[in-house]
């Protein structure tokens, strides 16, 4: 496919990042034995899956003092790279309460913004018109579910985990998976205090080998160690994982929103060649005694073909629609953030275990894209992991394969299997089932037809269009530039730290532009004096802007965790 200016289109995969995850991020312990830190179970990632696993384990251990004692002084350690557990959490989100109620049958005090009442799905026909889809397509029916902020929920879970006895080690990175003779024996934490060139500053502190009887990878959507394990331990599924990128804002509004809203259509382009699949959400965050707020965001699958597509700017454009303007009128933006979402579903789920190790949550691809659900799967998988680990440790075994079976037998496996073919023509992203039918009728067949083979996001050849000319100029009050959003996240990544992003920097212009537009945090820039034509440009990388959304890993680079504690400090996302 040639781009409008004539030369051959480029796909990111042609310029792979300089990294060999299996070789670099997997290896045996290197600390002398008496300096290794011994814990019972090491959980990498303090999100919903990680905390649920910690809590469930400690619930089981409470009734089993013998096993608890055998796990030593630190039976459960949670290794979390954010400043605190919750700092890197971002989602819509509407959560199915079943799993958290299983975890806490007697405690319903987990924070939320109320049960979903009314909901409407709109098909945005144009920049001015919106058509409500009636009846609400089945995947969007959220009766019985709750609006939550995962940043808030995670903090609550973190407190419960610590109360139960978990050691939550925040500002700590799981940098390397420790594997000894085919058995996963723990993780090595990240170094602190390296300078720009990777050298050691005066306060350099090396990471430590944390050895454990069981290791749980609950790293979330772009799992650093999970990615390495998939390659190095042969756990990858038949289909490659694919992602969408979501950019979110939280607004304080004068009038409470009375319903959960999803939209499809504008500003995405329906023509097949663009491969733009996604949509938006607008959720009420109403709580007694607090100013009403609204969570809104836009999600687009990362297999899109236009190098100048920018999810952040599409969100700004989307806000100009009268329907959204009405909701945000006289309001004030109080939060911004971005995060990737695994979209591969059932066929892209990896094998969820290896000797000594299991994979939970988003890291294991447990997101039901048509239904936009993943939070309760994360919690459920964490619980199932705890239960398997508990019973296997009792029998002195490191074979956690029963966990894989348990996940597939649970609602996680069943739901994901049910929606396994949503990757076909209109099945990516938010367009599914009845919505497709409605949408097709309404648009008189403008929606793309044909069959889409799944391929890696980075395989998609890119084209340059004039899409960027339609993004609104940020006015600083209603529409915003990327940097002010990054500022709002409280991102305090150290300036003189080594770059944590593996990426080729001398690349064709389309690729440089694709990364520049894609990144919601303005990490990548094309130099002003870069040649316009088909020649290569020297990409500028500003790693300290990075909010660790993970999109770059999908689209040709490889994110690795920067120093522990770096990145955003999300609070209400």
């Amino acid at each position, binding site marked *: 496919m040639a781009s409008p200016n004539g030369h051959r289109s480029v796909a990111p995969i042609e310029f792979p990042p300089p990294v060999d995850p299996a070789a670099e991020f997997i290896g045996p312990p290197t600390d002398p034995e008496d300096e290794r830190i011994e814990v019972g179970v090491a959980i990498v990632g303090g999100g919903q899956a990680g905390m649920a696993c910690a809590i469930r384990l400690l619930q089981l251990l409470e009734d089993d003092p013998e096993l608890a004692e055998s796990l030593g002084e630190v039976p459960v350690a949670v290794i979390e790279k954010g400043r605190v557990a919750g700092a890197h959490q971002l989602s819509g989100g509407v959560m199915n309460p079943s799993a958290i109620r299983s975890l806490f049958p007697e405690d319903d005090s987990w924070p939320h913004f109320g049960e979903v009442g009314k909901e409407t799905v709109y098909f945005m026909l144009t920049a001015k018109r919106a058509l409500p889809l009636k009846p609400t397509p089945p995947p969007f029916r959220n009766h019985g579910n709750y609006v939550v902020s995962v940043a808030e929920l995670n903090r609550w879970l973190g407190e419960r985990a610590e109360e139960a006895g978990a050691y939550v080690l925040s500002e700590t990175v799981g940098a390397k998976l420790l594997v000894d003779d085919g058995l996963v024996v723990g993780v090595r934490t990240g170094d602190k205090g390296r300078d720009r060139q990777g050298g050691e500053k005066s306060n350099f502190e090396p990471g430590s080998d944390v050895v454990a009887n069981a290791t749980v990878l609950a790293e979330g959507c772009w799992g650093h160690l999970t990615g390495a394990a998939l390659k190095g331990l042969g756990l990858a599924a038949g289909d490659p994982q694919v992602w969408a990128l979501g950019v979110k804002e939280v607004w304080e509004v004068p009038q409470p929103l009375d319903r959960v809203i999803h939209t499809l259509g504008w500003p995405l382009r329906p023509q097949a060649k663009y491969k733009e699949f996604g949509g938006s959400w607008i959720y009420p965050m109403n709580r007694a005694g607090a100013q009403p707020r609204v969570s809104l965001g836009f999600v687009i699958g990362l297999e899109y073909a236009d190098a100048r597509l920018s999810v952040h700017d599409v969100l700004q454009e989307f806000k100009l629609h009268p329907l959204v303007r009405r909701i945000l009128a006289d309001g004030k933006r109080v939060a911004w953030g971005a995060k990737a979402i695994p979209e591969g579903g059932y066929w892209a789920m990896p094998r969820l275990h290896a000797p000594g190790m299991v994979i939970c949550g988003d890291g294991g691809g447990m997101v039901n894209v048509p239904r936009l659900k993943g939070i309760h799967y994360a919690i459920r998988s964490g619980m199932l992991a705890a239960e398997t680990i508990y019973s296997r440790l009792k029998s002195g075994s490191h074979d956690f394969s029963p966990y894989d079976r348990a996940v597939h037998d649970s609602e996680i496996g069943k739901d994901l299997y049910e929606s396994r073919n949503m990757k076909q023509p209109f099945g990516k992203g938010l367009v599914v089932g009845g919505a497709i039918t409605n949408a097709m009728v309404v648009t008189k067949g403008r929606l793309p037809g044909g069959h889409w083979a799944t391929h890696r996001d980075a395989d998609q050849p890119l084209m340059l269009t004039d899409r960027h000319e339609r993004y609104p*100029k940020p006015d*600083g009050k209603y529409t915003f*530039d990327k*940097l*002010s959003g*990054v*500022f709002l996240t409280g991102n*305090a990544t*150290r*300036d*003189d730290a080594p770059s944590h992003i593996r990426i080729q920097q001398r690349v064709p212009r389309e690729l440089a532009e694709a990364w520049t537009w894609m990144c919601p945090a303005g990490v990548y820039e094309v130099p002003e004096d870069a040649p316009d034509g088909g020649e290569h440009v020297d990409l500028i990388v*500003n790693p*300290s802007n990075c909010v660790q959304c993970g999109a770059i890993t999908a689209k040709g680079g490889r994110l690795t965790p920067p120093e522990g504690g770096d990145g955003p400090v999300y609070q209400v996302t």
Partner: protein
Amino acid sequence: MSGILVYALHHDGAFNKNSLGAVSEGARLAGELGTECHAVVVGDPAGLGDELCASLGRYGARKVYRAAGPEGLAQPVVDAMAKIIGENGHRYALFGGGLLGFEIGAGLAARRDAGVCMEVTHVRVEDGKLVSERPILQDSSVTDVHYRSDLGVIIGRLNAFEARESGDASATVEDVQVDFEPHSLKAKMVTRGEQRGADVNIEDADILVAGGRGLGKAEGFEALEQLAGALGGAVAATRAVVDAGWYSYSAQIGQTGKTVSPKLYLAAGISGAIQHKVGMQGSENIVAINKDANAPIFEFSDLGIVGDLNKIVPKLTEAVKARKAG
């Protein structure tokens, strides 16, 4: 009698601008309250002659209390002021900010169980009492501070009060004998006020000329250094150019660099993104030169020039030199 007692710091035979400002402010407020402004000086009597002390009268002080004691240290001054206030009943103690102002004011507040407010930018009279105003939360908000004690301690932000001569009057000088507390004599000055010219601390500069990506290349800083030299200021830089290696990290301003509030901040080739803005938004006068009329910096600059800095900066340097010479 009630009154306002102002601390005046002297060095090398002169009172500094900050202290003269404080005395002027004390005099202004005393006038409104219908009382007197007095000053207190502490140091080696040889350097605190009658004429020098009496000169504070020109700034509105009626009386100057003079105590012999160690120079450049706060705690002996706390002892002196506590004694004077104890014997004369001053209602307010006023300081012009700066290191000693902060240390003395705080120590005095402890000694006299008094309310203290620091970084004060404005003082007003309300119902026969003084109310201090100070910015908080990185200058994003201003609060009023009321004193609920016999003595109110007001510590101004450095150079917040303007020195104003109010006449020719000469202040009367009164010597005070102070019995210093044992702990006040346990710190001994070895070297005072050493200048370390080499590394100019941009946080202390009154004038800053800052450069950003718009300079185009590292050499762009040469023109800025010339301009800074002509203006008598220092050079600062944005994170982007420090990252690119065009200037040193010690000059970096912004969210992750230094925060400055000079009298003049001249930004050349800087867009004014919020990460930079938070480091310099407290500057008294902001001048921006940028070729992009839509650059965010023009929204908060006091004077904005839309144009090519490569043309403007060198000519500005010449024009400044010319104005200063003639």
